[in-house]
């Protein structure tokens, strides 16, 4: 983002003759504008996800879901947001006002700031930090503070319960979730999200090894890596407080958990943050385990080539100029790849949410500390050994990856078949209008 700001500034200087003295103000204004655009992006993103979720939930629960506002109910989230904003913003008299007001923003900031390092394609990334992965784990942890703060400041016992549960849960699951990402960091040798994605590629010479073929994804690197993905997925469910880990807001136990006392816009902020959080969880899975935005067969130009200008993408024998329009479409395609993969992960999260019940708090703790954590450590060390025995570039490693990818395809087919079976097993009888 810094590059962007300085680039725009230099343009302004040369084109409009902007004086040097105004430089910091313009920079600040631009940062604000970008941040605003960013927040809107995250909010719209969350909104689309809400639509996505509600329609899928509707199908799972054998009802229709929102289909009135906009085409197929796509604009329902705007209607909901408008409703929430126009609602009275109630702060309980005995609440701790400053904390009560601050809490939703912490939650919102924590989630929205996480979007900064999500690479949607080779060039569509707000900030390619060299500690991107660490940053996103750290910044999304701020939400714990927000949740705990709201639980305390509401001065409601149910909200307090929700806040305490959430603190216990989020802090615990940070550990397996962070550790499950470590193998990817070891493999790519970088914490930057962009570099982790670019490391998930075979040799650029052959179209069948270059780019984002499934056998280049980290998830198929080794069986342990697959286990790591499952651990990370579970941990992200817990961190996003999604079922089966939605204990912080378990509506049948804690009324609504930490956000019991919130209404209007503040509640909307929680709501949006929660949904945006799920997108981040999906995006992290895609970045670290599913090859990110990489297009199958497309070899990314190296950083040196880009710096030297005249770099090209190679894709099935074609050379596409990095600075030209061809690259634009390629980037658009990788954006699409990223979104589709992310939507796939998010779909499973949604499907889980509307299928399984909630675990109990002691079971939640047991899962984390007794199973996930030792398993993650074991996987980490096994992967270290694997890396020594079968380095990424070796043919044997490629064969293993291809076998793993095939196994993954079988697993996916099995899942699809099972879902189809469950959808059709009750047949037309799901809609019993024919009786009456």
């Amino acid at each position, binding site marked *: 983002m810094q590059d962007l700001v300085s680039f725009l500034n230099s343009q302004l200087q040369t084109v409009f003759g902007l004086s040097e003295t105004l430089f910091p103000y313009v920079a600040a204004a631009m940062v604000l504008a970008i941040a605003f655009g960013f927040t809107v992006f995250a909010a719209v993103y969350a909104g689309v996800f809400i639509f996505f979720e509600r329609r899928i939930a509707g199908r799972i629960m054998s009802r229709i879901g929102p289909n009135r506002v906009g085409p197929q109910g796509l604009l329902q989230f705007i209607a909901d947001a408008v409703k929430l904003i126009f609602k009275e913003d109630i702060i309980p008299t*005995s609440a701790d006002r400053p904390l009560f007001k601050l809490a939703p923003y912490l939650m919102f900031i924590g989630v929205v700031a996480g979007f900064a390092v999500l690479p949607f394609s080779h060039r569509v990334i707000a900030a390619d930090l060299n500690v991107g992965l660490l940053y996103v784990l750290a910044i999304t942890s701020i939400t714990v503070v927000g949740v705990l703060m709201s639980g305390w400041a509401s001065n409601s*016992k149910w909200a307090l319960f929700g806040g305490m549960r959430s603190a216990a849960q989020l802090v615990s699951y940070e550990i397996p979730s962070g550790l499950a990402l470590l193998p990817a960091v070891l493999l790519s040798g970088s914490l930057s999200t962009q570099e982790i994605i670019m490391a998930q590629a075979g040799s650029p010479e052959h179209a069948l090894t270059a780019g984002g073929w499934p056998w280049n994804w980290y998830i198929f690197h080794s069986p342990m890596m697959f286990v790591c993905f499952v651990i990370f997925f579970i941990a992200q469910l817990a961190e996003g407080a999604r079922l089966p880990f939605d204990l912080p807001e*378990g509506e049948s136990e804690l009324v609504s958990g930490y956000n019991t006392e919130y209404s209007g816009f503040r509640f909307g902020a929680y709501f949006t943050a929660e949904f945006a959080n799920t997108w981040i969880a999906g995006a992290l899975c895609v970045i670290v385990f599913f090859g990110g935005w990489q297009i199958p067969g497309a070899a990314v130009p190296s950083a040196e080539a880009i710096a030297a200008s005249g770099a090209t993408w190679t894709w099935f024998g074609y050379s596409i100029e990095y600075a030209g329009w061809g690259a634009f479409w390629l980037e658009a395609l990788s954006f699409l790849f990223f979104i589709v993969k992310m939507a796939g992960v998010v779909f499973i999260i949604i499907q889980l949410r509307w299928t399984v019940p*909630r675990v109990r708090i002691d079971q939640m703790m047991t899962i984390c500390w007794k199973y996930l954590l030792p398993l993650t450590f074991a996987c980490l060390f096994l992967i270290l050994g694997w890396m020594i025995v079968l380095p990424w570039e070796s043919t044997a490693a490629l064969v293993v990856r291809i076998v793993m990818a095939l196994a993954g395809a079988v697993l996916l087919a099995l899942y699809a078949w099972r879902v189809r079976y469950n959808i059709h097993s*009750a047949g037309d009888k799901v809609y*019993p209008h024919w009786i009456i």
Partner: protein
Amino acid sequence: MTSYTTEIIDDGKMLINMGPQHPSTHGVINFLVETDGEVIDRAIPEIGYLHRGIEKIGEMVPYPGFMPYTDRVDYLAAMFANESYAMAVEKLLGLELPRRARYLRVIACELNRLASHLVGTGCMPMDLGAFTPFTHWVRERETANDLTEELCGARLTYNYLRIGGVSQDLPVGFDKRLLQYLDHIEPIIPEFNRLITGNEIFVKRLANVVPVTGEEAIAYGLVGPNLRASGVDWDLRRDLPYSAYGEMDFEVPIGKGVRGVVGDCYDRFVVRIEEMTQSIRILRQAVEGLPEGELTCKVPKKIKPPAGTDAFARTESARGELGCYLLADGTDKPARVRFRTGSFAAMCIIEDKSPGLMIADLVAFIASIDVVAPEIDR
């Protein structure tokens, strides 16, 4: 400015009101929960929020006029309160029901039991956080309600039974539609089992949670599915048959501790699911074997049982034995009406079973004994 009202009891415990408006109390009940963090020290049910004085109303209105009020005893299974009251009056008068009326009562009651268990077993996963099973069961219950509406014009408060029989005959084509519905719902029960009953998280949440032994269940006066889940093989329909149940062939499911110990929350859930299958079986037999005949027997125009006579009749409701006691004083109004309901008895066990439970366990326990608030308070 800020005043924290969190009550701290002497030993650092927190007193928290679970209810009267709480999502998992199934109506307006309050539980005074004394907790130490997530672990409950004591949960005291506070009932009476829905007391409407139904028993007192019974003393103010003539015998036949009280029938619509009995619907309000248990809104999810109104037919059974109807039947208990009707049977009590019939006992007072010494009436003998025509066979067709008995069969119609069985049809109405079993359809109602099915609808009630659909809600009961649907609410339980909902209280554990899984919302989908509930919507599926509500979808099925719609049809059951539609059928009941055809039968008696109402979907919840039926007022179908009359002293000495039933109010109306089956509508044209009802038997065919009912059989169609049964054919429709029978394969959906295994589907529901695939969705939730076999779900590992669901099992882990319920198995071994709050087991109630057979002796305890009898000591606390638990009835119906709660009693049977504890392994006590007792069902009024089979052991003291009333209306046409003596002619029906069905099994009584009891708790076997399928995934945990006998009498745990999971057993209470499974017993209800199995009872639905049995209800379907009874409904089939009742519809297919429906005899011709009168809808009501000869009932005296003025119902005035002699003073001092009393009667107690009980039926196997969806929530267990629903007893009705009547004391006549020679007028056309009873001197005393009393309902003995399963939910009220089930509330007694909560306080004694609560120490050491998690909050989530308490929610599961309340859901598993399937209490309905108006039936507790009447």
